Each structure stands twice: as C-alpha cells, then as structure tokens.
C-alpha cells in the first residue's frame, strides 16, 4: 500500500510501546542468558529467561513475547522443534535463533522454518543489538500495516459513499455497507465472491471491465450515471459511478476501485434550477423578440417617416434589445451546459488541436474588433484526461472575455506549456485589466466588473464561474494575473494524464 498517510502513532508513543517490547531468552548456557538479559535490560526491554525448550514453550503459552532468542542446541527438546511449535501457535512472535560456531546449516534450516534471523556464537553485544533492532523494525512495520488496515477499514465503513474493490480476477476484495446498500445487495458477505454476485447493474460491471483493460501506462477514470430502483418499495435513486484501476509499483493492474455516490438530490435540484432559468429566459425572450420586431418595423418607416433623431434613438434601443435577446439565448445554453457537469465523461485529449480550432473560431470576431489574436506555437504537450466539450467551453469563454474586454488595437495571445505535472494554457490580453479588489469576485456567479470602460460589454457574469467549476471538476484550477490598464492573463492548469 502506498504511504498516503503518516504513521498512526506519534513517535513518543511508539517509543513507549517499544520500551515494553518483551524478549524471551531460551538458552541452556546461563552465561549467555545473563549477558543478553543485562544488555537488553539496559536497552529498556522486558526480558525473561528459560533454561530449556520445554520451559520456554511453557512460558510462551502463558504470555505473549514479541521476540524470542532461541538456542538451537539444547539438551532435551531441540531448538528447531521448539521453533516449529512457536511458529505454528504464535505466528506474531519473531524468533531469532542462536547457533553454535560453524553450524550455519542449522541456521539455514531454522530460517526455512520461519526464524526471522540468527546469531552465531560467539556474538558481541553489538551483534545482539543489531539483530534485535532489526526485529523490532520488522514488528513495527507489521504493526503499522495492521494499524493502517484497521484505519482504512474503519474509514471505508463509515464513508457515506459506496466503495468496492475487486482484484484482477474481478473477485470482491472489499465492499462497504454504503456500497451494498446503493447497489441494493441483500445477500451474505460478498468478499471473495465474483463481483457479479454483488453487483447486478450491467453498467457498473462494464466499467469494471473497461477499467481493467486500461493499458498500464495510462491513467483512466471511468464515470457513468445510473438509475437503481430498489426491490420492493423505495424510490429509485440516481447513482454517480466512478471506476479506476489500481496498480502496483511497476504499474501492473492489481484490480479496480469503484466508488458510488447518491446524486439523486443534486440531480433533482439541478433540474429545478435549470427549469427555472430556462423558463425565465423563455418568458423574457418572447416579449423581447416582439419589441425587437416592432422597433424594426418603425425603423423601416412602415409606420410613417422618422426624423433623424428618432432614428438614432431607436437604433440605440434596438442594439440594447438585441443584446438582451442574445443574453437570454446564452443563459439557456449555460443551464444546459451546467447540468451536464455533475458526471461527465472524460477521455485522453490532446489540447493542441483544440487550441488551434478555438483560435481560428474566434479570429473573425477579434478581427472585426481590430484586435490581433495569436496562438503561440504549442510545444509537445502531454495529453490530459478531460471532457472535450468542457475544454472547448473553457477556452471559448476565456478568449471571448479577452476579446470583449480589450479595446481596439489590442492583442490577445493564447499559449500552452507544461508546468510540473500540469498542462497550463494561458490567455493573455492587453485589455482594461481588473482592479485588485475585483479580482476576488470575478469567479462568483453573476458578478460583473462594472466601470466606465466595461459598461457596454454584454455578458451574464457566468462565464468565469463556469470555467472555474469545469476546472475543479477536472482536478485542475484557474488563476488570473491582472493589472488595471495593462491587461489580464488567465491561466488554467490541468493535470497531465500519465
């Protein structure tokens, strides 16, 4: 397991625990028992002694020892035999065997039978200290793993999201209660069973198959949204599904992790919100459309001749109405787009072609405004794991903003490079810039920078919030640097796909 979390116990607590490390010395030579005891006591261990294997086994049966120093050659039961019994009955106990000089064969036999290490006589206090320290590190690692497992299990069992892991053969390795509840499983423990026993939903099974098929050098996260109708009563639920393969240090697939989230409420709220905005936009559009045509009819002098002044005023009014009609269309588009963000499909994407497409697409608008729109040559960019439509939306919003907020004769430059593990795209303009106290607010919904320069720029105040939520949904971020009167640079960072 990767070391994601720091060890559970503080170092002091560990020290305290190891002061109490108990060692049993089983040796028929009292001198050795004595020397070892003295030395280990000095190091702060609890030490007990036994003069032969029988006595040693009796003590091991009575209480737990972390480490046993076991002489192989003793009268009565041999150390090797005692080792076998200890290993089978107390697998947690670490056994270090003591062998006579030039009896390496015995040591090898003992190691084969599960001894942790050996000391050959004669040994120095340093030799002893070394081998015991090593054993304690081993015990500590085992404890860490066991603590980690316990912590992991507790954590997973108390998550409100469903979590399930399979091995490479699609057998269930782990599944929390939330998972079983969300997939509506009511049978016995599914651990060790084929995943089909636990999961009946074909969409989830298909994601698991796909996740296992992802090439080892590629990172992939598969998502889907499914509806599960529980047996018997109970309302159907909308479940967001994410499935990823997990790998060992050599990037070999070990299995899959599937995470489920009940997104029923979010989806319903989303729907209500979208319906509301769509309704408002529609209701506004109809009358605006009429007014626009009425103005047109008057401007065309179909209702009698106009004075120059009347024509001028009506002309300006028409522009405003036109802009409002466009705005209502934009709002409708945005609601459609936003509701799709909750659980979108990501794929490996090369950003280079998307950048050139977007630059080309917006060049006419920039030209019409007397701006230079340039795309810096894009170096070899690593691909990213992203949703294509979302990326186009992000770029389109940033470039449109740059064009809208830059006066005639200005310049909008698009560039991309790699920053550590991230791909960075920058859209820089030589426009009005944003005041420092406004910078904090520009990512807030419906917030718009209003001053004498930007008054005539039409927008919803939703463009940048959308950029931000898309970037967050992609584990990326958006940053802005701006100086009033000089221009702004928006940078978006996306994690490079492995």
């Amino acid at each position, binding site marked *: 397991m990767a070391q994601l979390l720091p060890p559970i116990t503080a170092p002091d607590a560990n020290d305290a625990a190891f002061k109490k490390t108990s060692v049993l010395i089983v040796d028929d030579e009292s001198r050795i028992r004595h020397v070892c005891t003295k030395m280990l006591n000095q190091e702060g261990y609890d030490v007990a002694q036994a003069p032969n294997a029988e006595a040693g086994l009796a003590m091991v049966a009575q209480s737990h020892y972390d480490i046993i120093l076991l002489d192989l050659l003793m009268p009565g039961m041999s150390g090797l035999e005692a080792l076998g019994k200890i290993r089978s009955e107390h697998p947690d106990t670490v056994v270090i065997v003591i062998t006579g000089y030039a009896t390496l064969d015995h040591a090898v036999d003992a190691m084969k039978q599960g001894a942790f290490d050996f000391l050959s006589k004669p040994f120095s206090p340093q030799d002893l200290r070394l081998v015991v320290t090593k054993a304690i590190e081993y015990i500590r690692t085992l404890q860490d793993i066991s603590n980690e497992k316990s912590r992991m299990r507790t954590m997973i069992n108390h998550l409100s999201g469903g979590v399930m892991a399979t091995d490479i053969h699609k057998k269930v390795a782990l599944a929390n209660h939330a998972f079983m509840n969300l997939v509506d499983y009511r049978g016995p423990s599914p651990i060790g069973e084929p995943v089909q026993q636990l999961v009946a939903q074909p969409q989830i099974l298909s994601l698991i198959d796909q996740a296992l098929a992802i090439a080892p050098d590629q990172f992939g996260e598969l998502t889907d949204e499914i509806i599960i109708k529980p047996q018997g009563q109970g309302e159907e639920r909308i479940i967001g599904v994410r499935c990823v393969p997990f790998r060992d240090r050599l990037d070999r697939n070990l299995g899959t992790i599937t995470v489920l989230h009940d997104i029923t409420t979010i989806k319903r709220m989303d729907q209500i919100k979208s319906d509301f905005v769509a309704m408002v936009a*529609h209701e506004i*559009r*109809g*009358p*605006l*459309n*009429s*007014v*626009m*045509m*009425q103005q*047109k*009819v008057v401007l*065309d002098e*179909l*209702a009698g001749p106009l004075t120059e002044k009347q024509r001028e005023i009506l002309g300006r009014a028409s522009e405003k109405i036109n802009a409002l*009609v466009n705005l209502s*269309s934009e709002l409708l588009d945005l609601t459609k787009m936003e509701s799709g963000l909750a659980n979108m499909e990501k794929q490996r994407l090369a950003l280079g072609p998307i950048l050139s497409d977007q630059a080309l697409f917006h060049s006419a608008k920039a030209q019409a405004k007397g701006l230079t729109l340039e795309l810096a040559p894009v170096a070899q960019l690593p691909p990213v794991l992203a949703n294509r439509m979302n990326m186009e939306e992000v770029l389109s919003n940033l470039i449109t903003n740059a064009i809208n907020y830059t006066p005639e004769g200005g310049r909008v430059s698009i560039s991309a490079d790699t920053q550590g593990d991230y791909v960075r795209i920058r859209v820089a303009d030589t426009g009005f810039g944003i005041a420092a106290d406004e910078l904090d607010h520009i990512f807030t919904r419906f917030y718009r920078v209003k001053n004498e320069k930007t008054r005539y720029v039409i927008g919803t105040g939703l463009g940048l919030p959308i950029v931000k939520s898309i970037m967050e949904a992609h584990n990326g971020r958006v940053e802005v640097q701006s100086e009033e009167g000089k221009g702004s640079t928006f940078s978006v960072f996306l994690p490079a796909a492995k």
Partner: protein
Amino acid sequence: MSNKQLILVVDDDPDLVESVGMKLESKGYRVAKAYDGVEAWDKIKAERPALIILDVMMPRKNGYVLCDEIKKNKDYKDIVVVLLTAVADAVKNTSYTHMDGKNTLADDFIPKPIDLDKLMEIVADNL
C-alpha cells in the same frame, strides 16, 4: 411578378403578428392574421392563403399539429408552411427532428428571435 398573394401569420403574440404583417404588407403581400391554431384552421378554410407563417408554441392547437393537419389534407397540402421555432439547430427544409422526436412536414423554418429581413427572403424563396 404578382405579389398580391395572401399570407397567413399565426402567433399568440399580437405584437409579433402586427409587426410581421406590416413588414409583409410593405413588400406587397396581403396579410391574414390568427392568434391560435384553431382560429388559424378557420382562416385557412375561409381564405386559403398561399403561405402560412406558423408559430409552434400556441394555445388550443400547437403549430406542429396544425402543420400536420394541413400537410395531410389533400385540399390544403400545397400551402407553404414556414414554422417559427425556438429550436436553433433545426435542419433546413421539409422534415426535421424536433427535440421531442417529432417530425414535421413544414416547408421551411425560421428560428426565433426572428430577423424580419431574413423572414422576407424565406417567404419570397418559397412562393
């Protein structure tokens, strides 16, 4: 070319009907007006227009239904129908798939918000 053809404008917004009507009259067409699908059907029978500019969302009988009735009636199927629609990604001409999966037999369409000059072009093209 005789421009005295009769055009029926159907929409539940009287202001829209008035504006479209004025524009059409300025181009020399005669104009009839209706404000819902049922009223439109009566006008079609009484006055037999050459072309109908037909809104989709209307009370009593919507534009899709009315269009269908016109195009499936052997006496009226030659009347040109131009739909006013908010569906921007509609496919031009004869039949297109609406978001609800509906097909229409309309001859043409113009998306709302309506560009009056464009509408005049469409009308001229279809007569």
